[in-house]
């Protein structure tokens, strides 16, 4: 049985299945400590009476009768993402100054079986539900299910919200092969399973089914048009201070232009790898990470199948408690025309005044297909208020 199971896991791996996430922006569940009767239990050996501390006063914060009705309100957070851009770019014309995104997060535990997370993204006059899903955290047999709208677990970067990326912009393969800056977001169901492995090796298989509609990527005129994603994720600690994470993804979805069309499909594959180094004792001041993703898109079109490839490699090094330097190299063909290739390089410097604000500069050069060059400077200011989110990993 074990062998058979192993071979299936291997097959899934080989098939290029992909990965699931310590999701980017998952934030805190409502953190009210459950009050228990204080430790008034008699001790077997009598403790010195004088040393017995007084009973703990009730939690200071959210009690009080006037606030009792707010007790079960979700934790609320707002993240502002302000971007300034200088330089010339005739292909991707970002505004010179913009509040690029305001993300409102609403998160709470629903009942003993599930939690809910909503992330509403405001940008200019648009409001989008970037994500809104229920997570069933109490399923038997090591299953975890999500239902709703979610960032698809295709690759690693696609699962992350814009504000937790190590850059102010999305890398080219996301823009070119996953339908634009937003990436692949789907309405549907996700089921993931923790595969038993020796030692502390983390191994997770995620299968996802979505409505076959995702802006710029999939189009689903028929009700029967669905998109699928499979993701396998493995993680291991190399040592106490370094670790490696690998992901394999396979996506499949329709891209018919109208209901008259025979449905054509796009097949997507990705491999992602992340290496992290952070010595535990000096971890406040020194760390480094190196990540890369490799994508392939095969898109059936009226003019035949277009095969496009893309990749990026990016590194980040922590210089001091609040300072990080980074660099990124990227390249991607275009999904609808595999003969057109865009490439780019970028260097970055990030400063965190506190855990809740971040200032980041990027110098970026992109060379677009057709010999169009663009050199730009991006300056990003991000700030968060409200509930303390978990740090992305």
């Amino acid at each position: 049985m074990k062998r058979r199971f192993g071979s299936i896991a291997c097959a899934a791996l080989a098939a290029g299945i992909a990965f699931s996430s310590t999701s980017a922006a998952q934030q805190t569940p409502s953190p009210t400590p459950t009050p228990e009767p204080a430790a008034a239990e008699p001790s077997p050996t009598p403790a010195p009476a004088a040393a017995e501390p007084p009973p703990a006063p009730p939690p200071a914060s959210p009690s009080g009768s006037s606030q009792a009705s707010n007790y079960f309100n979700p934790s609320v957070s707002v993240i502002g993402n302000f971007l300034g851009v200088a330089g010339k770019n005739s292909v991707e014309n970002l505004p010179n100054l913009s509040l690029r995104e305001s993300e409102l997060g609403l998160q709470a535990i629903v009942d003993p079986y599930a939690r809910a997370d909503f992330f509403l993204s405001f940008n200019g006059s648009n409001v989008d539900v970037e994500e809104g899903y229920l997570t069933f955290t109490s399923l038997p047999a090591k299953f975890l299910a999500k239902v709703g709208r979610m960032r698809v677990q295709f690759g690693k970067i696609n699962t992350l919200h814009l504000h937790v990326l190590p850059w102010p912009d999305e890398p080219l393969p996301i823009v070119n092969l996953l339908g634009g800056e937003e990436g692949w977001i789907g309405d549907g169901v996700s089921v993931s399973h923790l595969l038993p492995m020796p030692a502390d090796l983390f191994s997770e298989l995620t299968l996802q089914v979505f409505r076959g509609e995702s802006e710029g990527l999939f189009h689903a005129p028929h009700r029967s048009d669905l998109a699928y994603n499979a993701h396998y994720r493995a993680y291991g600690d190399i040592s106490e201070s370094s670790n490696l994470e690998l992901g394999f993804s396979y996506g499949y979805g329709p891209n018919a232009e109208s209901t008259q069309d025979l449905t054509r499909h796009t097949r997507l594959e990705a491999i992602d790898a992340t290496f992290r180094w952070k010595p535990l004792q000096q971890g406040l001041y020194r760390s480094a990470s190196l990540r890369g993703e490799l994508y392939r898109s095969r898109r059936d079109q009226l003019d035949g199948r277009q095969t496009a490839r893309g990749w990026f490699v990016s590194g980040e090094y922590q210089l001091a408690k609040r300072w990080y330097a980074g660099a990124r190299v990227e390249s991607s063909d275009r999904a609808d025309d595999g003969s057109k290739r865009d490439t780019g390089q970028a260097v970055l410097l990030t400063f965190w005044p506190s855990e809740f604000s971040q200032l980041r500069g990027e110098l970026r050069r992109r060379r677009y297909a057709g010999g169009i060059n663009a050199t730009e400077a991006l300056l990003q200011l991000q700030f968060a208020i409200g509930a303390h989110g978990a740090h992305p990993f």
Partner: protein
Amino acid sequence: MKKISAVLFAALTLGLSAPAFAKVNVVSTLQDFASIAESIGGNRVDAFALAKGYQDPHFVDAKPSFIVRLSRADLLVVAGLELEIGYLPPLIDQSRNDKIHAGNAGYLDASVGCDILQRPTTQVTRAMGDVHPYGNPHYWTDPENGRIIARAIARKLSELDPAGKAVYEKNLAAFETKLTEKEKEWDGKMAPYAGTKVVTFHDSWPNFAKHFKLVVAGHVEPKPGIPPSPSHTLEIINLIQAQKIPVIIVEPYFDSKTPKSIAEKTGAAMLTFYPSVGGVPEIKDYFSLFDKDIDTFVAAMKAKK
């Protein structure tokens, strides 16, 4: 797909048939709690801590290998008071282990019943830095809180593993007897220095200071979580000189550059104080934690005279 899930299920059921002598699997966020659980549980428990004793307990990476650990846990012991808010909630959610969710039988918030200091009585904002709205989460540095934590762990273990109740009670009694003895020894060593003023790097020692009658006069950090600034460093130098403060207490995971330079300018001694078990290998349990810090302090104070 169906076939895969059938195979997965089968593999799982195989994995679930645990041996009859299974130990209680305890995962704690801090090594202190794991160590106390080992003292109470003896060979009936397996204890593992997510954060190492030499690591800042606020900033722990949410490594997926921790999800694996949590998925197998029977009991999760947390410090609470939002100390673990930056990494633990998503780990619990992904653990697929209903037992260890807050409010369920396998979840123990060690702060409950402890003497918690600095609970804000007025509105707190992040202008104050990284403040904890439920009170200071470094409460286990008071040995009397350790006693309360030990009792809570013993109670919880008896609840989860009723067959071991007698063992847990016996071990708790032994732990408390030893703690009472050790407290006498520690209090005796510290008594000559009652009322001594100290400067600490981060505001993590109020419970220690309260128990051993020290007075925390200032912090090297201008605000919790904000690294030292030149102007604040100057203030601290003036404070140390004006009030003749003999020592600066620094945890092993903070940059010692600023406190060292303050020490050189003022003549105060910079002491490395370990906040948790495992900070150095010789701190192998909750008792040696206090032995180490108190001996460090006493040696520095004697050298001053």
